[in-house]
């Protein structure tokens, strides 16, 4: 399949300029580009979700036109969306077969569907119950369901838009196995990711987009990661991580004692020091998010105490947490982070609304804040008035970060900060976190990305099965130790460890 001279405009904003791309059977083709470069838009056009403003699609040497995604799928072009595309009220199996239910006579063949769903999930080594509702699942599980759904369709061309943004290492490996299997079967695969390692590992060729323009298409073997980054960003990336000199004697600004959440977290205790980045590692479902949400009052604690600067504090709601100078950045930017049907301004100021006037909202101040945030976080939107839901994934993430920082917190809990962020911006965010701690703020970092965890954290707490199994510092902070603790091989079971 090829796309030829594809242009796309939304309203007056043109986001793709004469982009051409060729996909070959049995090849993994990577698509690379900064946030907002137009990757998602391009693949949506290739699969029929959007219509190109000009340009044509060619499939097996013949021009085709996909009036909608149904036609695209009919031609074997399957897209896994960057933004999860599942009906939340429906169950896993219902979503997998949505729109193509297996029937026996007039009725749904539920047994077969369940069996097949189970089979697909097993294939992905994903242990969610096919009967579970999507809204009860963790984001990574949702992504696996999305992948299962795509695999259940017969694809000649499979397009994956940042499938690994929400996955952990093990799941990525499973996904890669599946991709390799499909490649061997002669499926053409178009793969989008901001993780250059992955592209090195899986892709045969790579196309780079920048500002909606095709920059180059090359064989992956001939490119180093740095080259890719440079092609993407158009300049050299400075040092990825900030230099950090951990001070393990700074005063304790937050201490958490014996916090439990029914069924999710047990007796978690840790301390956070001024100017520190405390990482939280663990496999999916280890309870990191649950613990953090319990600390800031979003989840009910069944027990536990919290002290701020040595004083016990009552935090029973997010409002309390905010008063204590604690802010939280959710990893579910669509479900709990942003109002997708609104534009940037109300989203940016929602958490810190009182800053913009108690009686009336000062729009000028809001605009100014937006200006600053766009600058500081390099948010790129074609149109400032467009709805946040239309933003590219990375730009949504940046906006969410900006939103949380509007409260000017002393302690920031960041859950997966760079999910879906391009490498250039990622480094900016890392330096931003570095600046924060230099200014005496403290950061709790929850991340599934090992380099990020190791590159940023002064200490790393590892959780497994709802407990903190160890807190690693100094040379102890390495991938091996983390994995040992995360899988429960190492570290004290039951007792929480703190220095």
């Amino acid at each position, binding site marked *: 399949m090829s796309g030829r001279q594809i242009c796309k405009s939304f309203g007056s904003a043109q986001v793709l300029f004469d982009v051409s791309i060729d996909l070959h059977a049995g090849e993994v083709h990577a698509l690379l580009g900064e946030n907002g470069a137009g990757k998602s838009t391009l693949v949506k056009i290739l699969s029929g979700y959007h219509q190109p403003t000009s340009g044509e699609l060619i499939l097996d040497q013949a021009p085709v036109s996909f009036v*909608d995604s149904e036609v695209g*799928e009919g031609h074997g072009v399957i897209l896994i*969306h960057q933004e999860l595309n599942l*009906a*939340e*009220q*429906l169950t896993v199996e219902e979503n997998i077969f949505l*729109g193509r*239910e297996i029937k026996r006579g007039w009725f749904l063949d539920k047994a077969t569907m369940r069996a097949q769903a189970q089979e697909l999930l097993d294939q992905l080594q994903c242990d969610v119950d096919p009967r579970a509702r999507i*809204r009860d699942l963790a984001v990574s599980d949702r992504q696996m369901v999305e992948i299962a759904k795509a695999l259940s369709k017969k694809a000649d061309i499979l397009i994956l838009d940042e499938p690994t943004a929400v996955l952990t290492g093990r799941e990525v490996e499973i996904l890669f196995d599946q991709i390799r299997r499909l490649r061997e079967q002669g499926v053409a695969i178009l793969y989008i990711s901001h993780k250059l390692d992955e592209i090195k590992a899986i892709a045969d060729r790579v196309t780079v987009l920048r500002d909606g323009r095709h920059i180059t298409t090359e064989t992956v073997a001939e490119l180093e990661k740095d080259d890719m980054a440079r092609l993407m960003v158009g300049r050299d990336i400075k040092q990825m991580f900030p230099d950090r000199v951990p001070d393990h004697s700074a005063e304790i600004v937050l201490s958490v004692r014996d916090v439990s959440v029914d069924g999710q977290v047990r007796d978690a205790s840790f301390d956070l020091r001024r100017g520190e980045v405390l990482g939280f590692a663990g496999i999916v479902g280890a309870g990191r998010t649950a613990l953090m949400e319990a600390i800031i009052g979003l989840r009910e604690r069944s027990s536990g105490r919290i002290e701020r600067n040595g004083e016990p504090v009552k935090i029973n709601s997010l409002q309390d947490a905010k008063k204590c100078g604690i802010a939280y950045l959710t990893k579910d930017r669509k479900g709990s982070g942003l109002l997708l049907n609104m534009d940037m301004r109300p989203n940016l100021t929602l958490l810190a609304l009182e800053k913009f006037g108690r009686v009336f909202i000062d729009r000028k101040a809001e605009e100014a804040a937006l200006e600053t945030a766009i600058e500081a976080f390099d948010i790129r939107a074609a149109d400032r008035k467009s709805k946040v839901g239309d933003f590219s994934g990375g730009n949504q993430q940046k906006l969410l970060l900006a939103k949380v920082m509007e409260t000017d917190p002393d302690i920031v809990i960041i859950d997966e900060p760079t999910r879906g962020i391009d490498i250039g911006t990622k480094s900016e965010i890392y330096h931003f976190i570095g600046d924060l701690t230099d200014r005496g703020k403290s950061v709790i970092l929850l991340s599934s990305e090992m380099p990020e965890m190791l590159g940023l954290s002064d200490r790393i707490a590892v959780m497994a099965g709802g407990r903190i199994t160890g807190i690693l510092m100094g040379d102890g902070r390495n991938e091996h130790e983390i994995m040992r603790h995360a899988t429960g091989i190492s570290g004290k079971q039951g007792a929480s460890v703190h220095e």
Partner: protein
Amino acid sequence: MSSVERNEAPTKKTSGGFSIDFKALGPFLALVGLFVLGTAINDAFLSGGNLSNIFTRAAFIGIIAVGATFVITAGGIDLSVGSMAAFISGAMIVVMNGLVETLGAGVETVLLGVVLSVILGIGAGAINGLVSTKGKIEAFIVTLGTMGIYRSLVTYMADGGTLSLDFDIRGVYRPVYYGDILGIPVPVLVFFAVAVAGYVLLNMTPFGRKCFAIGSNEQVARYSAIHVDRIKTLTYVIQGLCVSIATIIYVPRLGSASSSTGVLWELEAIAAVIIGGTMLKGGYGRIWGTVVGAIMLTTIGNILNLTDAISNYLNGAVQGLIIIVAVFLQRGDWRRKKSK
């Protein structure tokens, strides 16, 4: 409204086979509560005659509410059902009266009336569905409009008065309401059949699955190659069909139609649906809940007739209170709180 959404959330704790799904049982428990109340107030409540009355009455609203479950599950709303019922009744009566002269007051006449009713119901539903989907107008506005239109039409047909079914036809048609099979009144059987059909359609066919998907997230449904407009329109058609069925058993009961027929039935039907646990925002529907909801509403009315302890003027207040309390109890949140 949204509070429910959260209540749906907790996944059933898979603690063996002993856990009871209170959520699904809720409406039944509330209904049992009402029955206990009824019996306490008056022994006659549990008499076969009274129970049969309750279920027979619940049939009207119940059948309409089964249709409403589809509409609401798919994220729509239909305010026109009451007027639609009046209009269809009126049209049936006019046509059957007209046919008496040529066909005589026989079964054929009644059958033709029934066929007409079905055609009108499907047509009226299709109009609601098509205008709202193709015209891209909110269902609330469209059905508010057609509510006025259908009601006016029946008033016009009746010339401001009452349309009255020929008394000879009434004799033939009568068993459809007053008859019974093996002691079970025909309307109850029809209600049961409609509920079963509705259950099967909503829970066991691709169509029902698509209704859930559309109500849950229209965009996702569209991306899943679901013809959103077509399915939505079909839910209104089903609603129309249900109204038509309800009308078919309604006409022989009172044998007339006027501008006051079916007033506020839409509210009752929607209430039955919501009481039954379907979400007003769409995405989750439960036919059995709806059935129980309809029976609950009818039972409350019946209980109020069992006693004259309460001033007639306060009927509405007692009814309102019971509805709120019953829904509160069946939602089962109090149980969770207590157990802490």
